């Protein structure tokens, strides 16, 4: 199996931008239920800026792509998700370094670094009903897939499936971080928007790897 290169990273980000644009309304609706209703708008603003930035730039490694995504999200998204997701991409970029391609182990390192970055900045634990609840099962599943001999593409597929399940599993939770924590028990029954958008981005990463 060949490693995932710059083309994959660019395709991942373009797919993420597309799926965020497509789901903008739904993400904001989720945020309206337990937050302030801007999550779709925030991420869409950020990913549109990323796409615009990519037009003028030609990053030469997956790490360089992710670095550009990170700085652009940090300087355009705002809100809680801007610095948190931005940190995820920044730490992911650092883990990817300037390798031209990423194998399964490198993808696991990337995802782990990204998740650890979110946790370091946001201090959320699994079960706090945040994007960490998509990232952490994704990292765990990716690690297991790698241990089972999976290649980069299989690792990402496992991560995407686990992230989607993790996002869904936020529904019954009370929130302990972010705006949803203000609601106490009223947050129960609603999916966390940041977990959902994280799952969409990880699905985009997996689909980019298989060209689905």
């Amino acid at each position: 199996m060949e490693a995932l290169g710059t083309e994959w990273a660019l395709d991942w980000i373009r797919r993420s931008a597309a799926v965020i644009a497509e789901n903008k309304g739904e993400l904001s609706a989720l945020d309206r239920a337990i937050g302030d209703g801007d999550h779709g708008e925030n991420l869409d603003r950020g990913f549109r800026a990323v796409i615009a930035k990519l037009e003028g730039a030609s990053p030469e490694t997956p790490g360089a792509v992710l670095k550009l995504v990170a700085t652009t999200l940090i300087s355009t998204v705002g809100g809680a998700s801007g610095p948190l997701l931005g940190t995820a991409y920044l730490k992911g970029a650092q883990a990817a370094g300037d390798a031209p391609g990423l194998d399964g182990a490198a993808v696991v390192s990337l995802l782990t670094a990204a998740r650890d970055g979110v946790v370091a900045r946001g201090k959320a634990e699994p079960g706090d009903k945040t994007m960490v609840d998509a990232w952490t099962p994704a990292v765990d599943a990716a690690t297991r897939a790698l241990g089972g001999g999976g290649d980069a593409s299989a690792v990402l597929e496992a991560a995407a499936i686990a992230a989607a399940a993790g996002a869904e599993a936020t529904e019954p939770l009370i929130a302990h971080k972010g705006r949803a924590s203000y609601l106490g028990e009223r947050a129960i029954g609603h999916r966390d928007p940041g977990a959902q958008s994280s799952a969409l981005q990880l699905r985009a990463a997996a689909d980019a790897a298989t060209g689905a």
Partner: protein
Amino acid sequence: MKKLIRDPQTVVPDALAGFAAAHPGLVRVQTDPDYIVRADAPVRGKVGLVSGGGSGHEPLHGGFVGYGMLDAAVPGPVFTSPTPDPILEATKAVDGGAGVLHIVKNYTGDVLNFETAADLASAEDIQVETVVVDDDVAVKDSLYTAGRRGVAGTVLVEKIAGAAAERGDDLAGVAAIARTVNANARSMGLALTAPIVPHAGVPSFDIGDDEVEIGIGIHGEPGRARIAWEPVDGLVARLMEPILEDLPFTSSDDVLLFVNGMGATPLVELYIVFDAAASILRERSIQISRSLVGNFVTSLDMQGVSITLLRLDDELKALWDAPVETAALRWGR
């Protein structure tokens, strides 16, 4: 959705253009990145005060830029904290050599973005202190939440810290005053209707014709509880009791009573709320020494009100009374 706007996407820049046109002697409005500074910024030797956050809370923060209050305000998109870049630029623009105080409402997004900006400013050798405002007693302050929100008490922090900076306190001193205000201020709000965020076009939550949300925030977040409407005294008691018990405020305390409209509540109702709150304070022998009534920390077109009590001492009173000249709060000049 009917609003007096050009386009949901340009609400913030369009309002900033209007703000610049309305207050040319008072402020300069910078664009790309967007922030508002005092016309005479940076003031040499004075601690600079920067606040900011999502738009939609006007006059907070831009309306409080000027002599005796903020040196700069950084407006994010509607209800969305600004990114680090404009916060950094505003910080640089107001640094008069005595350092800069960031006044940040306690929301994850605001805290994180101001944190990054403060790091970047430090890297450019600007001394930055940060005060996080978290006056909202509707939210349990515990390890298991994002902590209390910063709501209307922010205005009091900005006014009083601004006066301290104007009289020449150093950065540590201004930060200490700001923290004292925050430590002595408690707020809680309710909503009769939900705001309509321009790019959403629909109310942030559904609420019946006879329902009230108690313990709301300023971003269209639903509150902690929904109750049936009742006359003002009952509603005000539901805000006052948690406020009074939290600090706690006790008899013979001197307070500033701040009745804040959420944007679409007529002033006549705010004064009725003031009357109801004043009655409760009278019963408890708490003395209203200062007052503020109006729409200062709003949530777009939400109908509702918040009540803030600030326990005063002589220094806080003197700083409150000190001259201020901003678009939304002005006296003594």
